[in-house]
């Protein structure tokens, strides 16, 4: 119920921000449509830890900040390869260990790998992710396992897979 309410408030906030019109009638339409979406989502049974992960609210922004810095660094690395001589390319497939416990955590890890240019997740499994890396440098950066640790920290310890 709390999750449904938070989803409703979130949808309503997005609606109000995008609308820009605040008459009674139109805001009423907005309220109704948000309510409708929440009801449909409840019926589809997707308002759970996975579909609407509010428990990550406070830790996620910190992780995103760190990820932003990683994205900046890896962008620079890939730009050097694009503009550099051709033999700078060292494409390879490496296997990164994924020690996340929840699906949300695993998806966050895989998407973070893809978001940092120079590494693209190709196959995602429970315990590992096969990553295509552009150069030795980007591959090494991933192999340290720093990102893996940080995603684990973000999803929080003691979280179980699927459901509360």
């Amino acid at each position, binding site marked *: 119920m709390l999750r449904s309410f938070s989803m409703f408030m979130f949808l309503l906030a997005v609606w109000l921000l995008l609308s820009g019109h605040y008459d009674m009638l139109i805001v009423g339409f907005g309220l109704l449509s948000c309510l409708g979406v929440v009801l449909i989502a409840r019926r589809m049974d997707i308002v759970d830890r996975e579909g609407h992960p509010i428990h990550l609210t406070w830790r996620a922004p910190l992780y995103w900040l760190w990820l*932003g810095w990683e*994205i900046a660094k890896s*962008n620079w690395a890939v730009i050097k390869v694009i503009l550099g001589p051709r033999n700078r390319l060292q494409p390879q497939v490496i296997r990164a260990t994924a020690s996340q416990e929840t699906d949300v955590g695993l998806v966050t890890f895989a998407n973070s790998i893809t*978001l940092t240019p120079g590494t*693209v997740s190709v196959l995602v499994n429970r315990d590992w992710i096969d990553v*295509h890396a552009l150069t030795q440098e980007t591959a*090494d950066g991933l192999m340290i396992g720093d990102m893996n640790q940080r995603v684990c920290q973000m999803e929080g310890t003691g979280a179980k897979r699927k459901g509360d």
Partner: protein
Amino acid sequence: MEIVNHILFYASWALLAAGGLLCVIGAFGLVRFPETYTRMHAAGVIDTGGALLILAGLMLQSGLTLETVKLALIMFFLLFTSPTAGYALARGTWSAGHRPITHTRSDARTDGHSDSAGMTDDG
């Protein structure tokens, strides 16, 4: 106040110019790199670097308005959807039987950093 406005103006100018440059570099890599997998990395530069810088530059331009919120939403959507689409694409390419050209083999966590010979070039 005047000084702050000036700084904001030049900062957004720099961000926009850098974003445009990153888009060009990424697209250039898209054309230059051999094979789908390597091109994905170049597309990643457009999706992250280029998009983030340009949207940030536009945010500085519009200040605290509804536009900034919309730009933030666009950024949010792009950052969530582009890796998902990227994974679907990589997974699809892999399942279709296309294998990346590789220059070193490293299956485990630590091995395979030795040879650095030039890669096969089929571009």
